């Protein structure tokens, strides 16, 4: 059971870690080939992963796509979420900042986790009901 959980976790987190790894390698190469300071490139890699990959990828976990598709389709979805969300927050509260973007990312991740937990619980109860009926 523990193995299954770990497999499930790695299945969901490995793609996003791989994407972050590619960005880190990109930052290294940028610093090495273009002589650009590494620290801002590293923060850039982290910023891109956090803002443009994480929220969309979290939502894409709710759909039946493979890891590469989730990652790639998740990027424009993140951009839409950050953009549309901030635009409305701007209209409602009069200003936006780093916090509003972080809030939107956290909300997306939280929503995705809650939805997945809910759907896995309902799946489990359906299986139990079926097992009970078969008995």
């Amino acid at each position: 059971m523990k193995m299954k959980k770990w497999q499930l976790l790695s299945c969901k987190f490995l793609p996003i870690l791989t994407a972050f790894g590619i960005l880190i390698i990109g930052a290294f190469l940028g610093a090495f080939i273009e002589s650009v300071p590494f620290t801002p490139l590293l923060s850039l890699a982290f910023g891109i992963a956090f803002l443009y990959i994480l929220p969309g990828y979290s939502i894409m976990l709710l759909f039946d796509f493979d890891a590469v598709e989730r990652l790639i389709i998740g990027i424009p979805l993140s951009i839409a979420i950050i953009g549309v969300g901030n635009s409305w927050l701007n209209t409602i509260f009069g200003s936006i900042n780093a916090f509003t973007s972080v809030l939107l990312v956290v909300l997306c991740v939280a929503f995705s986790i809650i939805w997945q937990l809910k759907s896995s619980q309902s799946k489990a109860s359906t299986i139990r009901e079926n097992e009970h009926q078969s008995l």
Partner: protein
Amino acid sequence: MNKSTVIIISILVLIGLFVRLAPTHLNVSENMPPVITSWDVFWHTTFTKWIVDSHNSDIMPSYKTGGIPALSPEPRILPINSAALTWFTGIPAYQTAFIFTALMSLIVVLLIFVVVRRYFGETAGIITLFLGIVPVSAQTWFFQMMVGFWRDFGAMAMALAGIIILLQGLEAGLSWKHSAVIGILFSGALMAHAQEFFFYAPFLGGVVVLWMLFKKTTWHSLIKTGVALLIAIVLSINFLSMMNTSYQVGGSLAQGLSTLGTFQQMQSYFPSPSLPAIFTILIIAGLGISALNFKKLSITKLSILALWFFFLFVSFSRFIGLNSNYTTRQIYMGYALLLLPAVIAIMFIISLINAKVSKKVTGIAIIILGFVYVLSFAPTSYSQFSNLKSSFGDKAHWDAIIWIKDNTPKDAKVFALSGYEHEFYTFSERTVFKGDLGLQHTQTNIQQLCNQQIPEKFRGEWGYWLYNNPKGYAVSRIGYSDFNHEMISDFNVSIENDTKSQEPLSKFNYVLFQHSGEQWSPCMQWFKQQMINNNHHVVYENEEMAIVKL
């Protein structure tokens, strides 16, 4: 998916990032733009900077509207994103805006990769990614980045992502979850570029209608797709209502049509588009006809047909006079989609080779041909990149811009007598009357100075840009759907295609000009001396630029 595929995709993505960003000699620590770009990139960059500084994406920078606090009908999704990246990383907005544009360019290619991989297989997908990323393709994309079509990139990326989710939903059973996410994506596309988005509507309609006809899909799918569009409109309503209002400011809807007409003037932005466009349309037409002959009905066939309809619509829009510029623009924006015929041709050749020789020999031949392909085009691409780079980043110009920003009141009016059109008004963050050494109105000014005459009124262009607004009006929101329209007092259109004005020097606080390094320098030296003789002070001077306080 095996490890080698992941590694190939990762390497191609890294090459894509490198090809797009390395030629700009991006320096993430510098607070100045990395390369020469055109008006669009300058505006996106400055709008990002404005959002970063003001924490407000709804209103225009005051120096863009003559001091009036006006709403911005600018597509704001993309500058909001690059502003968020700026806040998050601390990297200057001038850099993040450009990095974001490069990312968007790459994302569109990656999305086409997803479509091709999903419906044509892994090999076809990787060939698509390769073709979209290697220099010859990147050169075309780079041109768009230079011109600054990031709102087009954004609209296309979000619309494509929505269409992919819609296709998957139609295959697996469209749910309300699909509708919600497609709605968010389409609202993003609408707010990235509303006009652009509506050009994807035939593609979207084609997919759904074909699916209904051939797959006997229930009406629920159509309703759920409709709900997705409704969600998109509701999420964008705050922005779209303002755009409609801005169209009406001039008193008639005809203003909107004339705004569309102005895009036709931008035709000169595109390097010789006619032949490739015609060639491409012929290929797409042939592909569509061949798709009709497929024996087995499949999603691949439906996608190709929908793609065909999309391009037919866009292509014929030229002949019905809908918007000729957008036809060409779509051909360029749809460039990644056009990789598909090339990929099919390559796959066909591979299958022919495979039939004759072993797979191993085919693989080696493909790798060798790939290298030849890259090496053949790389020098041309990089020479174009380096030419682009040399045009902006003149330190003397930049120092003058910084001086204005740091040493003049925020409401100062600056006349850029012999500047280049965009840089001073965009980056100085002041109300600027623009000159452009490449345009007739500035050359007329300079000719008069060369004749040792100071014009009674100088010709130039107010550095206002109210996207989709009739020139010279600012719009502010009184209530949710109530707007106030105010004429910008300085806006005095009087000459040449309704964008230029004639203004006396007394209207300005500062005049900025290039006094050395060009053939007209003696004329500018004379002008400078006349200003000094008239008791004005040269408040800033470097080896090229001078600023006189009036």
